């Protein structure tokens, strides 16, 4: 039987080595289910605290736990690898926002909100990134595809669930803003 100190070392090692977040279930398999989820959660919390003040941190995202570097060190890492993921255009970001906050939506829904046509390339780019996916069709003539965001989208944005997305500005506040200079 392993003591909890060993458990912590093993958890740390597995999390450092795993290219993907590890769910509690996956982590339990490390120990052939010898430890319950509650115990592991406690050890993970301890581990998280052990890494306070270091360049990487242990976080809990949609699909599980993972180590990631802290944003403060990104400027150093950028010097090693000048290639960065694309900065998306407003068209892409607005489409993503509508899918994220209003899902599931069809392309028509997105066009209604934005007031302009949505280019196929926009949806393709988001699909290729693994951030959105077709989750079905709306049962109306033409059977338009319904889009939703994926777990990978949440993972990439460091979120555990959709309700951790920044809250929407309330309509009333938008109304109040009129009369105030728009930045």
């Amino acid at each position, binding site marked *: 039987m392993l003591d909890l100190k060993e458990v912590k070392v093993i958890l740390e090692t597995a*999390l*450092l*080595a*795993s*290219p993907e977040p590890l769910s509690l279930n996956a982590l339990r398999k490390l120990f052939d289910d010898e430890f319950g989820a509650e115990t592991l959660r406690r050890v993970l919390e301890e581990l998280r605290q052990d890494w306070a003040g270091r360049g*990487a941190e242990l976080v809990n995202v949609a699909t599980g736990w*993972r*180590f*990631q*570097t*802290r*944003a403060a060190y*990104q400027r150093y*890492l950028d010097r090693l690898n000048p290639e*960065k*993921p694309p*900065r*998306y255009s*407003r*068209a892409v*970001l*607005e489409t*993503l*926002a*509508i899918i*994220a*906050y209003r899902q599931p939506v069809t392309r028509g829904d997105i066009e209604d*909100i*934005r*007031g*302009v*046509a949505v280019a196929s390339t926009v949806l393709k780019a988001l699909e290729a990134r693994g951030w959105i996916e077709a989750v079905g069709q709306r049962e109306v003539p033409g059977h338009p595809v319904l889009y939703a965001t994926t777990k990978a989208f949440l*993972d*990439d*944005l*460091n*979120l555990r669930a959709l309700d951790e*997305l*920044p809250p*929407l*500005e309330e*309509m009333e506040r*938008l*109304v109040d*803003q*009129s*009369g*105030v*200079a*728009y930045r």
Partner: protein
Amino acid sequence: MNQIRPPTPLARIYGEPLLEIPRDLYIPPDALEVILDAFEGPLDLLLYLIRRHNLDVLDIPMARLTAQYMEYVEVMRAPQMELAAEYLLMAALLIEIKSRMLLPRQAEAAEETADPRAELVRRLLEYEQMKLAAQGLDALPQAGRDFALVQVWFEQVAEARLPQVSPDDLRNAWLGLLARARVTRHHKVTREELSVREHMSRILRRLRQREFVEFGELFETGPGVAELVVTFLALLELAKEGLIAISQQAPFAPVYARLFREADA
């Protein structure tokens, strides 16, 4: 009138310089593209005009807004017909709203008649909400852009995993055979028979290593009588199936077992 002015950014939207169209409607040749880049569509342009000119969303002065909007649309109509279509549609809507507001309203019905601007206001606010949400999303830390994922090197199991088989899989496979081929009667396999079969394989292996093996050598004395019986049964079964030949040169001479050869037939 046609005084040429260099484009000066009046505001920055998403880091893009935004040029307001001068009052005299002169647009520098490259300013049009800047405008088209800066706005995501007619709703976006309207929002910009409303916010920039401190107009009240709930009480949009339609005459003023429509006039300003038309200034933009005029300049983008010629070179960008296709794109301008969406803007033209909005222009038509604005003019329609404006004209409906000019219609005399009956004092009594005023309360019940919906404000012709209501739908436009709803759309503007919904779009603005999503526009701000997009900015919010973009501001979130993003893997690969604002932080990196940790991945320490480890020895990956390179070879492909082999399928696992359990005894129950074999049982089920056999069951499938039975159901399919109705071989039940011919292929009853009992524990005793299995032991015999196992020994048949063992004896064949032995005989492959040496041409002649003395009969007695094929029996292992350790495990007991049952083992001897099973071995004997295996030898008989092998002889019966024509897999081995058992021979004796002379009475009381040693009995030998060897693999069956065609010459024996």
